[in-house]
């Protein structure tokens, strides 16, 4: 069992008016950066780095970062900078990037170099992950959306070659062209850092990840559709001639631990307050469907069962399509919209559905067990410290996780035989001899 820690690093500005239920419009891609305060930004970046260092100290195996652009809910526009700093100031934990938005890179050779540097500085602790990105990312860096999937695949093939095939060589692709590929930086890990693919919705991507034997990380989706997506991965793995296992299944979900159940509830509600990711269920922000759902980004017929959950459907501005596809009924969508409109209503609903788990260690451990039994992932990430949560909220939770939750979860992982990609190599399904803790020493 591999356990990582994640927060989206929201831009929390109490003076902005969009922190908490103020009624100020926080429509995604509808906020001017005239409101951005770099001094506050400095505090927040340093706070989030400090929390990651503490997460390592508390025993997390992985420190996960993500990347979004032109939005206050995630400060990781240049996640690789944060990763490079963590590479230097942490010692053991894997640095997990989920993920770089490949199609928006005009120059993927530059990305190959950056990731190789991070891998070297960390002495082989980088886990790289690649995504297609939502419409927001393509708008922000003006990447031609109908070619998003093609560019993703070509950039992947190119970076892999840049990492594994000695240069110089030439690349004349459909979307990328290089006359001299010979980066003077190579990944520390041989042949290259592990590649994990995060996602929520795209059937194409699951299919592709399974073909490449890359672990697939479901991002905070409901349990049942997550299970179905893993089953879809397994089916595609079988078609590709191998048996997928726990090492191929990964799951990110919201967990906050606190000193009392009451305090955990009070703080847990902050998950969906403030500048938290507006395309996730119950949050206060709104998305512009036409920008999330840019032309040609997602094939209409290739939609995973997660479309049935409100979060995923609205993530891509596809609530209406979900109805057509026989996913969520309009009644369900209306009910969830009502919950969202009720402010904290959907916090309780998400708690019931295990997509948010809060409480004392004693309360959360059996709930996490339920998630592990239901999904059987070999790696998990706790998503905490988000929305309107303060540094103190995060630190209390990290401490209790380290002292009580992680040891219990590791035992459950053993009992359920949940093997991470560092115990069973997803590329070969062979047992990995070196223990994950040894990496980087």
């Amino acid at each position, binding site marked *: 069992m591999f356990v990582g820690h994640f927060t989206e690093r929201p831009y929390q500005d109490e003076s902005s008016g969009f922190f908490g239920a103020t009624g100020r419009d926080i429509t995604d891609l509808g906020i001017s950066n005239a409101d951005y305060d770099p001094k506050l930004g400095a505090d927040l970046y340093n706070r989030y780095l400090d929390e990651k260092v503490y997460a390592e100290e508390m025993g997390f195996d992985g420190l996960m970062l993500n990347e979004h652009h032109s939005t206050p809910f995630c400060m990781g526009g240049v996640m690789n900078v944060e990763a490079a700093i963590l590479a230097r100031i942490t010692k053991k934990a894997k640095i997990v990037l989920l993920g770089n938005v490949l199609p928006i890179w005009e120059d993927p050779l530059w990305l190959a170099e950056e990731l190789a540097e991070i891998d070297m500085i960390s002495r082989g602790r980088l886990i790289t992950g690649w995504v297609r990105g939502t419409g927001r990312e393509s*708008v922000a860096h*003006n990447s*031609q*959306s*109908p*070619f998003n999937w093609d560019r993703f695949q070509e950039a992947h093939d190119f970076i892999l070659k840049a990492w594994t095939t000695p240069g110089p060589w030439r690349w004349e692709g459909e979307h990328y062209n290089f006359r001299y590929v010979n980066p003077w930086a190579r990944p520390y890990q041989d042949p290259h850092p592990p590649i994990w693919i995060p996602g929520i919705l795209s059937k194409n991507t699951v299919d592709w990840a399974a073909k490449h034997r890359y672990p697939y990380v479901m991002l905070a989706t409901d349990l049942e559709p997550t299970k179905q997506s893993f089953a879809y991965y397994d089916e595609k793995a079988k078609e590709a001639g191998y048996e997928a296992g726990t090492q191929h299944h990964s799951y990110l979900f919201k967990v906050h631990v606190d000193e009392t159940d009451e305090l955990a509830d009070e703080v847990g509600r902050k998950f969906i307050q403030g500048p938290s990711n507006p395309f996730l269920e119950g949050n206060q922000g709104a998305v*512009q*469907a*036409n*920008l999330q759902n*840019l*032309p*040609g980004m997602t094939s209409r017929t290739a939609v995973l069962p997660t479309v049935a959950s409100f979060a995923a459907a609205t993530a891509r501005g596809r609530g209406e399509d979900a109805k057509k596809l026989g996913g969520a009924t309009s009644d369900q969508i209306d009910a969830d919209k009502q919950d969202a409109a009720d402010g904290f209503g959907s916090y309780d609903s998400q708690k019931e559905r295990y997509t948010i788990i809060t409480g004392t260690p004693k309360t959360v451990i059996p709930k996490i067990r339920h998630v592990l039994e239901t999904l059987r992932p070999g790696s998990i990430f706790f998503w905490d410290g988000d929305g309107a949560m303060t540094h103190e909220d995060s630190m209390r939770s990290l401490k209790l996780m380290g002292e009580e939750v992680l040891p219990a979860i590791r035992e459950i992982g053993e009992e359920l035989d949940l093997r991470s990609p560092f115990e069973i190599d997803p590329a070969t399904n062979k047992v990995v001899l070196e223990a994950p803790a040894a990496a980087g020493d």
Partner: protein
Amino acid sequence: MTTTESSTEQTVSIAGLNLRLVQGGSGASAVWLHHSTGSLGWLPFHEALSQNFAVSVPDLPGFGQSERPTWARHPRDLAILVLRALDELDLGPTLLMGSGFGGWIAAEAATMSPNQLSGLVLIGAAGVQPDEGEIVDLIMHEHDDYVRLSFSNDAAYEEIFGEAPEEDVKQLWDFSREMTARLTWKPWMFNRQLLPLLATVQTPTLLVWGADDRVIPRSSADLYQGALANSRLEIVDGAGHLVEMEQPDVLASLIADFAGSS
């Protein structure tokens, strides 16, 4: 939107791809190229035009019922296919008309094969970077808002589409938006090579702009007029970007007068 008894459909194969068009009327050949939002079929404007011309209204390659050229990356690629279609259909010297995005394609076609054209009509045409204002970015708008913006006012939009368009119309807009985004992105809706090349074109050209066009700035019209030696500009009152929707009869008679005089 309205296929009438006066129009017929046919399909031709161009570069191995089916191209569908609607035709009606008789007389000299006139071909109209639709906006980036796709063709709604045989419109009152086409009906009016067909009193004087043999009118052809193709679905541009990759739009509507015409097969997608997956390799196409620029409106100029479609212009070449359109020129081949004129040959294939044996239409003879043709009055080539285009609105908005279709106007851009018509202008590109004129730079490549002026001898195939008896005249050129550019209606609120994209293709040229305005020196004042900017071409509205479809990508940053909901389909419905974008089309509303293409009328001179909301009432004019609602007269045609009602308060909200039918599902099939929304699907057409959504589908068309994808093909448009495959052909123009950076820069959005213009080509810096077009104006210098238009300076080589002597084809008689009628430029028509809605007085209230909120999508393509008037300065684009002025730049077209400056580049095309043999052109004149007509401004149509009571029309936005979709002149053919708001003032179909006025537009048809402007075109008939232009063709008669040139």
